[in-house]
């Protein structure tokens, strides 16, 4: 455990305590104590066996720097060609109103968490810190202990959103050596439908900084959410994130998670199915190269009968990069008629790349359909030869087949502008080989 980091927590909290509502103070205090007790994880911790966080734990991180100069123009490349989407922009962790675009939509609140806390919104009290357990990971505890800002989205019952809402977190050169702990809360009430895009990007690809976000998602009965998470940090940055989803009866959650940045990037995605007839679809793509380490841990809690979960994560690894995938599915004894399928497929483009993949199904009900499959392989020689025999040069054929492998999961993103952008990012990454 790094004493510097603890000091910073104290310091940051000291500065913000005045703004914390009474009910939140004990939540933060418990998280602080939790982190103080656990410290940073080590490789002895099963959950972190393949992901050594020494570079994060041993470094001394400054709190996020104050306002950095960013223009609307610099953010253009991150907005999917849609300046008409509601967008909250956070620069080095702090909400920037002048860069954000808030359009009034009846039944929808899209404001910064800091503002929501100042207003002491009643929705906060029943949701903030109520979903993501501080036990989920030491990093989540650290986030909860220090939460100050992030996105707050509330979609009232029965509201159907036509356009996506975008939470955009930008790191600038000033972020070098600093840490931010963005905290997001997305509440979609009964019968409402929404799409949220959550992006982590940088204007300074060579800076080393650390982003430690937590996003809590609550879906009411028959609510529907498509949640796209795009992690494009710089390749010297660190990213440790948790997304926790709580779903009520008949709700539908569809997630897509792209991870392509970070020297070490970890994302935990936990979905708890709290009632019957819930559907949970988790799609993911990770692209790692050079010395990058990208780690996805997902957990699906099937606590009730007649629910369906479907998970597909794909990875493309190049250079001496590493990927970790761990997919847990817990099926409680009462969760009969559970239908759960998990797939993790990895493509290695180099001899130096490595994947540790571990499906982990714990099933205590007897009338269920649960399957899982994990593969680690190289490009198909026969498909390569077939392409070359048609005149397509070897390097181009490799790119084509790699693209096809990865694009298959991108196709699951139903927002066309986002899908197009993801395909562009993939092409750009492959062309840089």
């Amino acid at each position, binding site marked *: 455990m790094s004493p510097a980091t603890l000091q910073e927590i104290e310091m940051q909290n000291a500065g913000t305590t005045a703004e914390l509502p009474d009910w939140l103070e004990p939540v933060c205090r418990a998280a602080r104590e939790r982190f103080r007790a656990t410290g940073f994880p080590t490789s002895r911790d099963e959950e972190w066996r393949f992901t050594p966080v020494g570079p994060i734990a041993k470094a001394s991180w400054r709190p996020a720097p104050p306002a950095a100069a960013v223009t609307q123009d610099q953010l253009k490349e991150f907005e999917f060609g849609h300046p008409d989407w509601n967008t909250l922009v956070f620069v080095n962790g702090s909400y920037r109103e002048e860069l954000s675009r808030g359009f009034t939509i009846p039944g929808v609140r899209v404001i910064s968490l800091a503002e929501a806390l100042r207003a002491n919104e009643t929705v906060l009290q029943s949701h903030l810190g109520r979903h993501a357990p501080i036990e989920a990971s030491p990093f989540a505890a650290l986030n909860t202990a220090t939460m100050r800002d992030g996105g707050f989205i509330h979609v009232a019952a029965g509201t159907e959103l036509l356009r996506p809402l975008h939470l955009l977190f930008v790191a600038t050169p000033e972020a070098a050596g600093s840490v931010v702990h963005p905290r997001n809360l997305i509440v979609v009430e009964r019968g409402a439908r929404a799409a949220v895009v959550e992006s982590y990007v940088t204007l300074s690809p060579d800076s080393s900084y650390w982003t430690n976000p937590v996003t809590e998602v609550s879906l009411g009965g028959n609510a529907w959410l498509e949640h796209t998470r795009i992690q494009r940090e710089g390749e010297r940055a660190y990213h440790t994130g948790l997304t926790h989803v709580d779903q009520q009866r008949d709700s539908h959650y569809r997630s897509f998670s792209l991870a392509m940045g970070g020297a070490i990037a970890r994302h935990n995605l936990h979905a708890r199915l709290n009632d019957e007839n819930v559907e949970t679809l988790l799609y993911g793509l990770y692209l790692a190269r050079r010395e990058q380490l990208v780690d996805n841990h997902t957990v699906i809690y099937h606590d009730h009968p007649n629910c369906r979960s479907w998970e597909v994560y794909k990875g493309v690894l190049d250079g001496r990069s590493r990927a970790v995938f761990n997919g847990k599915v817990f099926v409680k004894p009462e969760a009969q008629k559970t239908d759960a399928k998990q797939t993790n497929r990895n493509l290695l483009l180099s001899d130096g790349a490595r994947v540790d993949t571990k499906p982990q199904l714990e099933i205590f009900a007897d009338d269920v359909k649960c399957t899982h499959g994990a593969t680690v392989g190289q490009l*198909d*020689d*026969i*498909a390569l*030869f*077939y*392409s*070359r*025999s*048609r*005149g*397509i*040069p*070897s390097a*181009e*054929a490799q790119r*084509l*087949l790699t*693209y*096809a*492998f990865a*694009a*298959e999961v991108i196709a699951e993103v139903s927002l066309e502008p986002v899908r197009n952008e993801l395909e562009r990012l993939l092409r750009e990454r492959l062309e840089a080989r």
Partner: protein
Amino acid sequence: MTLPLLEVKGLRASAGDKEILRGIDLTVYPGEVHAVMGPNGSGKSTLAQAIAGHPAYQVTAGEILYQGQDLLDMEPEERAQAGVFLAFQYPVEIPGVSNAYFLRAAYNEIQKARGLEEVDSMDFLDLLEEKLKIVEWGPEIMSRAVNSGFSGGEKKRNEILQMAVLQPRLAVLDETDSGLDIDALRIVAGGVNALRRPDNATVLVTHYQRLLNYIVPDHVHVLSAGRIVKSGGKELALELEERGYEWLEDEALAS
């Protein structure tokens, strides 16, 4: 004097430590259709694959000249760009890549290699219209992933479509007739015939005489145990149909 399009001389090839081709000689002139026949395991497919440059086969002796160039010195894509085409016995499925994208990529690489202009996707669709007629297909096939979920017959038709678009000088068809029903066989054969020109040539690798009812060869060669044991005109195919391959194998052993 016309120069040969393809000259195979004393070709020996192995898969791993197993020798499959044991000295093949074959000369193909522009405008000709050659049928290479023979029982299973005689080396027909290996010959086809060696011409295309399949990495699983090592050429241990001999040479393959294409328009006087040393084909063995060329990468598979260079052979394709120079005008060599292999219709696969088992066309490969490529999920996630549309037929249109794949074929346009191939077409443009070949155009580029020939110093010709590449085409955009709109112009390519125009060009395709004509070619699709040859295999009696509508444009909807182009948005499906390459061979993915295609029936056996559709895969073979797709090979002929590729051939029609890429316009090779030398087309090698490896068991293109196997597993086809009579309609598919008619379409595939019709495609091959439609693409015959005085300046290109076709090598048909086949087990059965059936295909040769539709595509009439100028020369027929019989392969046995890695060697050409008999060559003749189209009547040789009929004789094989009647008598099978055994008498030739016996003859070869006796000599």
